């Protein structure tokens, strides 16, 4: 109460003074009324002013009053230079806002603990091994039978939990009475998930270990709170309703707690199903879900993890060795390579997702860029404050000579800095509130956006507050120390060493140019890498290609698919229709071993795709030799391969007419044609060996086999192929032949989705580069302008004694260009250092390319020219007579 009232009183100093005065006055009147001599009564009180001051300092917090006075003074100072103050506030706001936005994204994706109990005890299991092409890979997915073994083995120390990735799945909610198919993120989880995570239902009940006992036994579903809210408007009557997924029906038994949306950061799980309800759960060789470890309370993390890891590792090895179906047809060498795997237990309190893996370094770069922008802005403002402080040297000298202490002066300047920073952080907070969700919305394809909770809670506030303190110290402390070190005698005499503040400002300029160069350098790398990737020759056309990813329950014979394609072909607006197993550069990639003439499979696998005869012409992939598929071709039988396939398996031979098997002792495939190379799965990777087989497959008795899913590739004659999508989907639906369109996209979108990360980082880097250049330009302009103003006496004298104009320009700009050269060199070395950290994110671009360095250098030089011009002109227009007369 006491401190609070003193703080309050400090806020209303004048009123407090009046109150004290009134009370003391009342006392004297009382004394007079009781018969004392008025003069004696007053005299006995002593000095009224001193009494009032003494009373005031008891009742009001003095330090606060001083700070308030400083802030009021600082506010007036800022108001005096409205344009520079606004520039300072805005540039700091962009810096602070970018940093806070970057922090919100990084924190939300990588650091923020899951909303579960004991998240710090949560770990995830994975295996490190040497993958295809000899690259080390980390596999986080496990087979359910192995999970159960491991779960039972470590029961004493911890609980193992299985959680599948939340895949975007076709679901039908039966309770609406409709059979409309929609997408939902469905995860299969072991029954102990909810109890071990300490989660309570918002409605109904959650899955328990009893719901996860056997295949097909407990068809129960739990909705996430988020999905229940936006899909069902929190309708409590969802309980008891059912959802159809594939050919299974699940009964909704409950809704999860409010915050919990799974462990896969970036994806919100909509529906949780029991692990054992998935058909993969019984297969030994199907690795399809992650395994988490929650240590039991009381188990020491430091000492428990390594023994656990060794125990689990032994179980894993034994399981792999005994797994009869795991290595079907693999060579001994591959089996050895696979068995030589290492089990890893890593901390997973913040969840685990592919998004984290894909974006960890991109977010690091985003954070670095934002921090650099903030540094540049701080240096700008530091220069501004130094310039102001040197203009205020006389004021400071006066304050010192009338007895202001050093601390008091530092406080005076720092409170002005703090005022700037607080104002800037208000705008920055607005910027961050808008930009963090905006950047997040660019992270994934628009039809499946990344979803992260971005709350503005105490973590963000704490970070923001820390940032303000750091910023104030960064740009305020040095000018404050300088100003407080003013020697009154020198300053009042007419200025001490006029060069010293300029030295400081020049250092700041060099540093600023270095940071700016680094930002531009990184921007140049990312933009060029993105352009390279985007302009990479594809080898197929993306123009007007509509893709209908279609499913057929338990499968339909190829003839059904071909008839459907025929029906689509007859639709107006459709040029040609082809069928393939899946689209190029989509999510699906399947490889196959290649064995030639019955020899053991070769070390490199090839990738394959089932296609109908029209597919090559629809995709505009040219045949280089041989022929295309004919309608009567079936698989196994005919095959078309790409050129890399020929180079890999038939080097220096004519491949037409030769045969290969998909693994040892498999049916023969005869090569009938060769096509140009195309990217199969990933635009960034070099082209791989691919073979195409006919869409019509037959089994070993040459009977047609049913096809469960395939993609209709449709070349339309409209610019926007999606315009036809709905009518084509209805045509398929009306045929009632069991085929159903599950997803609609275009080939162009698939290619674009491949470059999303590169596009995002290039866009952000461009934004930051533009801001950095602008700030550096403003900074340069301000410093030069200030230096010309300060040196106008010197310039005037030089002009008066006949210095040529070129000489004036030289003395004004020489050291600035020197600073820029030093800064540029420093920035370049920073750039090389940074490029080592993110070089692997670049596509066919190196830090040492001449282009990479030339672009930033040109941009900085141009900015410098523009920024120095006004100051140079001002210097040249100096009128010596006027200057000398003024002195």
């Amino acid at each position, binding site marked *: *109460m*006491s401190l609070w*009232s*003193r703080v309050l009183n400090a806020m209303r100093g004048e009123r407090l003074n009046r*109150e*004290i005065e*009134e*009370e*003391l006055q*009342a*006392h004297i*009147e*009382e*004394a007079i009324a*009781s018969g004392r001599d008025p003069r004696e009564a007053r005299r*006995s*009180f*002593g000095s009224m002013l001193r*009494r009032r001051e*003494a*009373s005031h300092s*008891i*009742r009001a917090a003095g330090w606060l009053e001083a700070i308030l006075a400083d802030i009021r003074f600082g506010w007036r100072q800022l108001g005096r230079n409205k344009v520079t103050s606004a520039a300072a506030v805005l540039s700091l706001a962009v810096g602070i806002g970018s940093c806070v936005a970057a922090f919100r994204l990084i924190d939300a994706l990588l650091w923020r603990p899951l909303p579960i109990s004991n998240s710090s005890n949560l770990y995830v299991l994975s295996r490190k091994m040497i993958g295809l092409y000899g690259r080390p890979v980390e596999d986080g997915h496990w087979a359910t039978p192995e999970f159960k073994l491991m779960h039972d083995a470590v029961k004493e120390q911890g609980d193992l939990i299985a959680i599948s990735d939340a895949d975007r799945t076709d679901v039908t909610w039966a309770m609406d009475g409709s059979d409309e198919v929609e997408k939902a993120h469905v995860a299969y989880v072991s029954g102990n998930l909810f109890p071990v995570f300490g989660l309570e239902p918002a409605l109904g009940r959650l899955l328990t270990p009893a719901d996860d006992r056997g295949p097909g036994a407990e068809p129960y579903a739990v909705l996430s709170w988020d999905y229940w809210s936006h899909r069902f408007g929190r309708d409590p009557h969802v309980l008891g309703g059912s959802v159809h997924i594939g050919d299974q029906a699940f009964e909704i038994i409950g809704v999860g707690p409010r915050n919990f949306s799974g462990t896969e950061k970036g994806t919100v799980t909509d529906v949780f199903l029991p692990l054992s309800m998935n058909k993969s759960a019984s297969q030994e060789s199907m690795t399809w879900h992650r395994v988490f470890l929650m240590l039991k309370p009381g188990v020491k993390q430091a000492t428990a993890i390594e023994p656990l890891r060794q125990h689990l590792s032994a179980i894993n090895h034994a399981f792999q060795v005994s797994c009869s179906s795991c290595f079907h047809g693999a060579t001994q060498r591959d089996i050895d390579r696979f068995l030589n795997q290492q089990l890893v237990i890593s901390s997973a309190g913040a969840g685990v997702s592919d998004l984290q893996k894909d974006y960890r370094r991109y977010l690091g770069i985003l954070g670095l860029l934002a921090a650099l922008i903030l540094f540049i802005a701080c240096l700008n403002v530091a220069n501004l404050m130094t310039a102001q402080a040197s203009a205020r040297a006389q004021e400071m000298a006066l304050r010192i000579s009338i007895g202001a202490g050093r601390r008091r002066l530092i406080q005076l300047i720092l409170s002005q800095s703090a005022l700037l920073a607080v104002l800037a952080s208000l705008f920055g907070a607005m910027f961050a509130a808008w930009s963090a969700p905006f950047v997040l919305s660019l992270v994934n394809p628009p039809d499946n956006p990344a979803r992260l909770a971005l709350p503005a809670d105490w973590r963000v506030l704490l970070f923001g507050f820390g940032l303000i303190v750091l910023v104030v110290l960064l740009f305020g402390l040095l000018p404050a120390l300088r100003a407080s070190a003013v020697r009154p005698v020198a300053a009042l005499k007419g200025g001490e060493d006029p060069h010293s503040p300029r030295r400081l400002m020049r250092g700041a300029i060099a540093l600023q140019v270095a940071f700016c160069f680094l930002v531009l350098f990184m921007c140049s790398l990312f933009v060029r890498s993105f352009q390279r990737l985007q302009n990479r020759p594809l080898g197929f056309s993306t123009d007007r290609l509509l893709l209908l990813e279609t499913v057929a329950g338990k499968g339909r014979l190829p003839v059904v698919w071909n008839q459907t394609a025929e029906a689509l072909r007859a639709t107006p607006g459709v040029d040609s229709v082809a069928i393939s197993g899946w689209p190029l550069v989509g999510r699906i990639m399947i490889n196959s071993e290649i064995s030639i003439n019955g020899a053991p499979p070769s070390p490199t696998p090839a990738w394959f795709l089932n296609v109908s005869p029209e597919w090559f012409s629809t995709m505009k992939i040219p045949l280089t030799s041989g022929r295309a598929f004919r309608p009567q071709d079936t698989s196994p039988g005919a095959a078309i391969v790409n050129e890399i396939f020929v180079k890999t398996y038939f080097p220096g031979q004519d491949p037409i007419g030769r045969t290969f098997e998909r693994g040892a002792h498999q049916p023969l495939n005869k090569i009938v044609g060769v096509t140009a190379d195309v990217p199969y799965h990933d635009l960034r990777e070099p082209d791989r060996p691919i073979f195409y087989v006919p869409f019509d497959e037959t089994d070993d008795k040459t009977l047609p086999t049913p096809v469960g899913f395939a993609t209709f590739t449709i070349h339309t004659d409209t610019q926007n192929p999606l315009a036809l999508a709905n009518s084509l989907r209805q045509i398929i639906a009306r045929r009632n032949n069991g085929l159903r369109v599950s997803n609609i996209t275009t080939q162009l979108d698939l290619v674009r989705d491949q470059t999303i990360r590169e596009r995002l980082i290039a866009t952000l880097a461009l934004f930051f580069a533009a801001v950095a250049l602008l700030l550096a330009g403003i900074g340069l302009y301000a410093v030069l302008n200030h230096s010309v103003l300060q040196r106008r006496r010197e310039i005037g004298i030089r002009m008066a004694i006949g210095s040529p104009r070129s000489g004036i320009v030289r003395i004004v700009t020489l050291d600035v260009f020197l600073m820029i050269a030093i800064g540029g060199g420093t920035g370049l070395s920073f750039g090389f250092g940074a490029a080592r950290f993110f070089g692997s994110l670049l596509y066919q671009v190196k830090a040492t390319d001449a282009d990479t360095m030339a672009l930033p250098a040109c941009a900085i030089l141009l900015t410098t020219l523009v920024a120095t011009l006004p100051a140079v002109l001002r210097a040249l227009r100096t009128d010596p007579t006027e200057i000398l007369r003024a002195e």
Partner: protein
Amino acid sequence: MAKTDALQGSLDLLVLKILSRRPRLHGYAIMAAIGDTSGEVLRAEEGSLYPALYRMEEAGWIRAEWIKKDTGRRARVYELTAAGKKQLGAEESRWRSVSLAINRVLREA
């Protein structure tokens, strides 16, 4: 007049004691009451009374309130808080032990 250090240090005690007997007094009345009850032996100096009052107010021992007097002027009256009552007890026992000690010294010497 008696104006010793002991008294100076004990101004708080006197003020608290006066206010515990007669609540809602203004500054002048407190001063007058100290004079009256001590038979004009003790007199709080007017200059130090108010800072002492404010200090005790900030410490939360007494509470102040503006009231309107019959004359139309405002006056600030003080009364004891619960914390003040406790403080009074503590100060009283401290004073007793100090005066007991002084008496003992006087007797021995």
